């Protein structure tokens, strides 16, 4: 097969197409047409489409590379500590992401998972917390000053200016105002809420399934 140049190339191509077809196209066939789930109890469909500002915020999240330290995928309650850390009551499933232009699943957890940031109980952060973290950073989190304007107060103090105290406070007569990018990023983070249910996310009778699966 290798001696003959033509069949060698055909073999290579076939190998490539099998891999591509098996994984990329195979999963596309299964999940490409996944629809939102109508929850009768709630009387509406989930997941909901992100609103305009939040959708733009996802682009900021992507271009800053937030996904290099934060994941957005909750594992099931008996697999890891995701539930115990309050990241989500159930595992994330494919349907959660169907409205996202570019899902940011991430692969490293230097920081916490953000899938359900706004739905965390009891202590979901508010916009003020997030903006302050982004501006000041911490021992665990970078600061992103470029997302803020430190500017002279002209006339009235801006409503969205951060309330900073102590050494972080801006010079007198100045204020720190989040830019539009910071605002959309925070709006996106506060739209991350998966506290709704999907039937496939709470599978039934795992023990029975194991047996039947093996005999099939």
């Amino acid at each position, binding site marked *: 097969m290798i001696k003959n140049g033509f069949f060698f190339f055909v073999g290579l191509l076939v190998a490539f197409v099998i891999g591509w077809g098996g994984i990329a196209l195979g999963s596309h066939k299964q*999940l490409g047409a996944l629809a939102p789930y109508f929850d009768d109890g709630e009387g509406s469909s989930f997941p909901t489409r992100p609103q305009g500002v939040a959708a733009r915020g996802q682009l900021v999240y992507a271009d800053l590379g937030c996904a290099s330290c934060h994941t957005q995928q909750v594992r099931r309650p008996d697999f890891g500590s995701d539930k115990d850390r309050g990241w989500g009551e159930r595992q994330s499933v494919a349907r959660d992401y169907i409205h996202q232009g570019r899902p940011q699943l991430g692969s490293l957890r230097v920081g916490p998972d953000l899938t359900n940031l706004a739905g965390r109980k009891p202590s979901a952060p508010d916009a003020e917390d997030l903006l302050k973290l982004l501006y000041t950073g911490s021992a665990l989190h970078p600061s992103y000053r470029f997302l803020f304007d430190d500017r002279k107060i002209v006339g009235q103090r801006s409503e969205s200016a951060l309330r900073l105290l102590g050494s972080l406070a801006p010079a007198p007569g100045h204020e720190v105002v989040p830019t539009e990018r910071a605002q959309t990023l925070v709006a996106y983070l506060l739209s991350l809420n998966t506290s709704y249910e999907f*039937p496939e996310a709470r599978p039934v009778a795992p023990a029975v399934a194991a047996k039947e699966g093996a005999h099939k």
Partner: protein
Amino acid sequence: MSSPSNHDPRLDQAAASDESLLAAHEKVLGKQPDEKAKYKLLPLNLLFLFSGLIFFAGTYLNRYSGLFDSHVFNENALPTPAGAATAVKVDPLVLGKKQYEAICINCHQANGLGLAGTFPPLAGSEWVTGSEERLIRLVVYGMTGPVKVKGVEYSAAAMPTIGKVKDSAYNLSDEKVAAVLTYIRHEWGNAGAGISTEQVAAIRAKEGDRKPYVQDELLKLP
């Protein structure tokens, strides 16, 4: 081995020419089968190993593939049967509270006391905690005319039709009706037993489509 005598790090000497390298390796691949059946141990071992790996991979795939179902995310679970979208068990009290807050609260109020003289109370009401047969009918089909609750006469009850029946104002499913009934029989110090979806469904099947009840019809029931 024709090893180079000096090992100056600046230059690795070649020990074979390209042509002979090609020819020698080609000879190995082009070799005829061992006619005297002197199979070397290593090739056989490798073949066994390869088969073993294929066997392992196949078994593993079979065991943990979740039957290649697109809805199986836990490799130990069964595929969710088609139409079993209600596999999620929702707490009826939570569901019932939601329904109550969406519909009933307008008249009967959050505290379940209603409005004196206009809307009868649910808290401590004998209609709520008493006969299940009456309560289910009252809520599914609604009620008109005078009604007496906790000894107080309400001249013109206008309980709307809640269940999934003809001319219903809300078309709530049996599950939701059961949930909201369970909720009101449990809240505000009431202590009635829960009502199941099946009970509601049975009564709806028995009565079919009909107009709202009046007090006397209900009182005839057990």
